């Protein structure tokens, strides 16, 4: 027997035939929109992990002021957040925010430095040995990156000359070479052959003995944040920032001029000296001006980064156009 029963579904709810026929297109289109949307969001998120300022660290005791510092009324010091969230430290990645996002895994204790080469006191020294009897000073310096941005940074450190004197370089020593740590476990950048690792920098011995050249262990009176080269880094304020080797594990005295990493990578663009010089452009961009982080208008770059009076004697008779 045939039972007449009304349809369960009213006609208004039945899918339009056209839409039903084209349902695959519709699903495809919808999926396309969803994928595009998700793509835009995920791309902007991954691209835009803005740098994270370092957490504050232990206060350093007995830090003295130095007459070699910039006076605060002379140029405004950059903030902790600026200094610790934006810098180059390629061992942690090549983006400016990479060091601040990645460096926290770096193990800086215990730390030791191998002192080698043309010196009497060769050996492996712990950081405590190095800091024994050393008076820490605050040095507020201009910092000029070769990429034409700059900051004013209140480092804490001690003159590099003190460390060199302790090592007792021989008469043959003409240069000092600094080597940065390579640690595959905590430094993702060293898996990429962007530069030849470990990172190596060098100075002429007389440059290294200059009172402005320091080994920094702190920032703003606190222990140096890892992204800025903890626990021990070089600061040479009249040279481009990349000369300041970070997280130093080896100091070697040599008779011959060391090959620094950037010079090895692109010798026509980066020299051994790399003194800040507004008259010698980088082959691809100008070095005549710079952007101070936090400012809109550019500043004129100063010869030797404003330290010409103190350091130009080191380069008497040297052609700075050729020896860039």
């Amino acid at each position, binding site marked *: 027997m045939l039972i007449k029963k009304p349809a369960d579904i009213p006609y208004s709810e039945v899918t339009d035939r056209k839409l039903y026929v084209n349902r695959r297109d519709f699903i*495809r*289109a919808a999926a396309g929109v969803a994928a595009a949307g998700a793509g835009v969001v995920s791309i902007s998120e991954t691209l835009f992990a*803005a740098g994270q300022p370092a957490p504050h660290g232990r206060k350093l005791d007995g830090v003295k002021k130095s007459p070699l510092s910039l006076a605060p009324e002379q140029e405004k010091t950059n903030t902790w957040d600026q200094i610790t969230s934006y810098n180059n430290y390629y061992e942690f990645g090549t983006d*400016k925010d990479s060091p601040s996002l990645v460096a926290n895994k770096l193990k800086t204790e215990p730390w030791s430095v191998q002192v080698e080469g043309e010196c009497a006191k060769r050996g492996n020294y712990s950081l405590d040995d190095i800091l024994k009897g050393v008076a820490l000073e605050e040095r507020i310096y201009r910092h000029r990156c070769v990429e034409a941005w700059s900051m004013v940074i209140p480092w804490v450190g001690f003159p590099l000359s003190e460390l060199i004197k302790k090592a007792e370089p021989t008469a043959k020593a003409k240069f000092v070479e600094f080597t940065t740590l390579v640690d595959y476990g905590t430094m993702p950048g060293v898996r990429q052959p962007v530069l030849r690792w470990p990172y190596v920098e060098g100075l002429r011995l007389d440059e290294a003995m200059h009172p402005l050249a320091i080994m920094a262990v702190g920032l703003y009176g606190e222990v140096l944040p890892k992204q800025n080269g903890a626990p021990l880094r070089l600061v040479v304020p009249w040279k481009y920032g990349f000369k300041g080797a970070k997280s130093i594990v080896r100091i070697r005295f040599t008779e011959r001029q060391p090959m620094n990493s950037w010079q090895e990578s692109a010798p026509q663009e980066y020299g051994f000296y790399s003194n800040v010089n507004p008259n010698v452009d980088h082959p691809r961009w100008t070095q005549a001006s710079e952007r101070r982080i936090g400012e809109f208008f*550019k500043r004129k770059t100063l010869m030797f980064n404003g330290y010409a009076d103190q350091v130009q004697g080191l380069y008497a008779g040297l052609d700075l156009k050729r020896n860039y």
Partner: protein
Amino acid sequence: MTTQNVLRFVVKPAVCAAALGPLAWLTWAGLTGNLSVNPLSDLTNETGLWALRFLAISLAITPLRRVTGWNWVIRFRRMLGLYAFFYGVLHFLVYTIADRFAGLDFPDGMASWTTARNLAASVGEDIYKRPFITIGFTALMLMLPLAITSTAGWIRRLGGKRWNALHRLAYVSGIAAVVHYYWLVKADVRSPLLYAAVMAVLLGARVYWARMKAASVARSAPAVPRRA
């Protein structure tokens, strides 16, 4: 709704809005301090990257259509190409303001003809002097006639064949944009090389298909030599 209407009233506006996403994000992040401490550098880099991305996406439409048979994707090509130009123009404006204007001296005050002249001279000199700027500017200028002739009226006026030939300038622009990016990075060329690879695939596919077509035309051509 028909598929046509879904495309026209849902998908297209959605893609259009999504393409403004990066600009919205940059604006929001810039205003709320969510960029880095060098926001002008971020704005310069990001607008440039998005111009390159949209250029690559718009150049991917034709191969995508050919490989998948989805003819409807062609409807997005013009819009995506115009977005490449849009982000390219933004990139150039940010550079002009943040890199050039910010580096000027203002002997007659900021709002003066001297400023305008000096700014034009500064941009011009930079384009002339620095190869990576020269080629970046070239990439943008090649997109200008394409943006102008992107309307239905211009397609009609030029005729399909000539219009198509003109719009092949997008290939040259894509190559120039990649070279611009490659020349500006310091040592880490991975990202520029990735874009170069994408561009090579997109343009290489066209070369390959053009050859296949030429070969099949040659095969199907009559055996008797054609008269001149």
